[in-house]
C-alpha cells in the first residue's frame, strides 16, 4: 500500500497549502486543486529548506508536520467561493485519466524513468534521505561536479521526504509524483478552459488534444522523475493571472507559480522573474510595486538561501555559462529542427512559429512576453555554454520545450478562440 503515499501526501499538501498561504495573506483560491497542490509543495519545501539550514534533522519534523498540516486544513475557516469555471466530467476527462493512468502504469514499473533521475535528481534525493536533510557537503564534493550540484533542490527534497516517510528509497514509488504533476497540469488547463466562453465541444477537444499530446511525450521521452514538470506546471498555473487584470487572487497565483518554478530548476528562476515582471505589467488597481513585491516575495525567499549556499559551498558549475558565440547558431538551428521533429512531441514544437498570434490579443501579451523571455534564455544558454552545442541542444531541448509548450498551446487556443467575455475565477473575486 506504500504506493498510496505520494497520493496521500499530495492530498494533505493540497488541503493545507492554501490554508497556510491564506494565513500569510495570500488570496489563494480554494477551489483549484492544481494551485492547491503547488502551494502545498512550495510550503513543504520552504519548511524542509529552513530545517536544513537550521541544522534540524527532517525526522524531527515528521511528528509535527502532519499535525501542523491537519490543523491548518481543519482551522481554515475561509468561506469557499462560489464555484465557477467548473463543468461536468466529459469524454475529454476520460482522455486525461487515460493519459495520466497509462503514464502512471509505466512509471510504477520503472519503465519510463529519465536517466537524469539516476545521474542527478534521484541520487541527490537518496543522499538527502540518508543525511536526513539537504546534504550540502555531498553536493560540494568535486567528484560529483557532473551532478549539477548548483541546481535548486525542491524535487530531490520532495523525493527524499517521501522516501523517509515510506521508510525506504523505492524509485517507482517516488516517481509517482510525476504523473501527479501531469494530472495537476491538465487540471489547471481544464480549469482555465472552463472559464472561457467556449462551447463544451471545443473545450473537450482542446483538453483531449493536450492530454494525449502531453501523455505521449511523458511516456515516449521517458520523463518520470524529471524536474521539468515543475516549471511546466508553474507556467500553466500562471496563465489565468497573466490574462486577467491584476488582482489579489492573481497575485497569489503568480507568487505560488514563481516560487514553484524557482525552487525546482535554474531555468525556473528565470521563469519566476519573468512571471512576476509580466504580472506587474498587467493593468490593476493595486500599486504596481506592491503587486511586484507580493508576487515575487515567496520566490525570492526560497531562492536567496539557496543562492547563499551555492556561493558558500562553491557549487556553481563552470560550464553553466561562458562568452556568447554567434557562430554556434549554425549548430543550434539544425539541432532545433531535429528536436522539433522528434516523434515524442508529434510536431508540437512547430507551434513556436505561431507565437506571434499571441500578440494579436492584448490580454495574451503578458503570456507572450514570458514565453519569449524564457525561450530567449534557452537560446542564450545555447550560445554561451562552453560545451558541444549540438549535443547540448539535442539532449536538453526536448525537455526544455516541456516548460513552454503546454502554456503556449493553451495560449494559442485562447488566441484563436472566438472573442468573448473571459471570466477567469480571479476576476470574479
Amino acid at each position: 500500500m506504500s504506493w498510496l503515499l505520494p497520493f496521500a501526501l499530495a492530498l494533505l499538501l493540497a488541503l493545507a497549502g492554501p490554508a497556510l498561504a491564506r494565513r500569510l495573506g495570500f488570496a489563494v483560491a480554494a477551489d483549484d486543486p492544481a494551485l492547491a497542490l503547488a502551494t502545498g509543495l512550495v510550503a513543504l519545501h520552504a519548511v524542509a529548506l529552513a530545517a536544513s539550514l537550521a541544522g534540524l534533522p527532517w525526522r524531527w519534523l515528521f511528528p509535527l508536520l502532519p499535525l501542523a498540516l491537519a490543523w491548518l486544513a481543519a482551522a481554515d475557516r475561509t468561506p469557499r467561493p462560489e464555484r465557477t469555471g467548473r463543468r461536468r466530467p466529459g469524454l475529454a476527462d476520460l482522455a486525461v485519466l487515460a493519459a495520466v493512468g497509462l503514464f502512471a502504469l509505466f512509471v510504477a514499473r520503472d519503465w519510463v524513468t529519465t536517466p537524469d533521475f539516476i545521474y542527478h535528481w534521484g541520487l541527490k534525493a537518496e543522499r538527502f534521505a540518508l543525511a536526513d536533510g539537504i546534504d550540502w557537503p555531498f553536493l560540494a564534493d568535486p567528484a560529483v561536479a557532473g551532478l549539477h550540484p548548483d541546481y535548486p533542490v525542491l524535487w530531490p527534497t520532495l523525493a527524499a521526504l517521501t522516501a523517509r516517510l515510506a521508510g525506504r528509497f523505492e524509485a517507482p514509488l517516488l516517481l509517482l509524483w510525476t504523473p501527479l504533476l501531469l494530472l495537476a497540469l491538465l487540471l489547471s488547463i481544464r480549469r482555465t478552459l472552463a472559464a472561457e466562453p467556449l462551447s463544451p465541444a471545443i473545450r473537450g477537444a482542446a483538453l483531449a488534444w493536450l492530454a494525449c499530446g502531453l501523455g505521449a511525450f511523458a511516456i515516449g521521452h521517458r520523463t518520470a522523475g524529471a524536474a521539468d514538470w515543475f516549471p511546466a506546471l508553474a507556467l500553466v498555473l500562471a496563465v489565468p493571472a497573466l490574462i486577467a487584470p491584476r488582482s489579489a487572487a492573481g497575485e497569489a497565483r503568480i507568487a505560488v507559480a514563481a516560487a514553484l518554478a524557482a525552487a525546482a530548476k535554474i531555468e525556473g528562476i528565470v521563469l519566476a522573474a519573468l512571471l512576476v515582471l509580466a504580472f506587474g505589467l498587467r493593468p490593476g488597481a493595486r500599486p504596481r510595486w506592491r503587486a511586484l513585491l507580493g508576487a515575487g516575495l515567496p520566490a525570492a525567499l526560497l531562492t536567496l538561501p539557496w543562492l547563499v549556499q551555492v556561493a558558500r559551498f562553491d557549487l556553481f558549475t563552470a560550464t553553466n555559462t561562458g562568452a556568447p558565440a554567434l557562430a554556434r547558431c549554425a549548430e543550434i538551428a539544425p539541432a532545433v529542427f531535429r528536436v522539433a521533429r522528434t516523434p515524442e512531441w508529434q510536431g508540437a514544437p512547430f507551434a513556436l512559429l505561431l507565437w506571434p498570434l499571441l500578440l494579436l490579443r492584448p490580454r495574451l501579451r503578458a503570456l507572450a512576453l514570458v514565453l519569449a523571455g524564457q525561450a530567449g534564455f534557452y537560446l542564450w544558454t545555447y550560445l554561451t555554454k562552453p560545451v558541444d552545442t549540438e549535443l547540448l541542444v539535442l539532449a536538453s531541448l526536448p525537455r526544455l520545450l516541456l516548460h513552454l509548450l503546454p502554456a503556449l498551446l493553451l495560449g494559442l487556443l485562447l488566441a484563436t478562440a472566438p472573442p468573448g467575455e473571459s471570466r477567469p475565477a480571479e476576476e470574479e473575486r
Partner: protein
Amino acid sequence: MHAERTAPPPPPRRRPRWHPPLLLALLLLAGGNGVGLVRQVRALRAALPYLRTADLPPFAWRARSAPVASLERLLTAVDSYLGPGVRVRVVVPEELASEAHYVRMWAAYLRPGAFWHTPDDAPGDRPGDLVLTWRRRLDDPRVALLLDTPEGALYRRLR
C-alpha cells in the same frame, strides 16, 4: 437580505460559440495526438525486451536492464565492505573508459551511502580506499584483492 436586493446583477455571460473550423482543427489534433499516444506506448513496449537484455553502452542503461543487473549483483557481493562514507573508485573495461562516469553514477545510485569516484574525477587515492572493477581485473601491486566475483572484483589500495 438587503445586500442581496441591492447587489448588482452578474454580467450576462455570452453564449458559447461552436466555431466549427476551430472545433474541426482541435478534433483532428486530438485524434492525431491520441494515435501518437498509442504509438508511443506500443513503441515502448516493443523496445523494452531489447533495452532489457541488450548489452548497451552505460549511458543507455535503464533500470532492470542486463548490465544494471550485473552491476547490482557485483554490488550485492561487496555490500559488506561498503559502509557509509567509504570511498570507492570505479574501474571499467578499457573499451568503456570514456563512459566510466555513467557506471560510477549507477553504482552511486544503487549504493548511495558510499562516495564513488572514477580514475579521472577525484584527488589522489588514499591507503584503505576501495577499488571496484566491473567486468575487469587489475594486475597492480598497489592494490590487494578483497573479493573476486564473476561480475568483477573489489580491491583495497595499499599505498
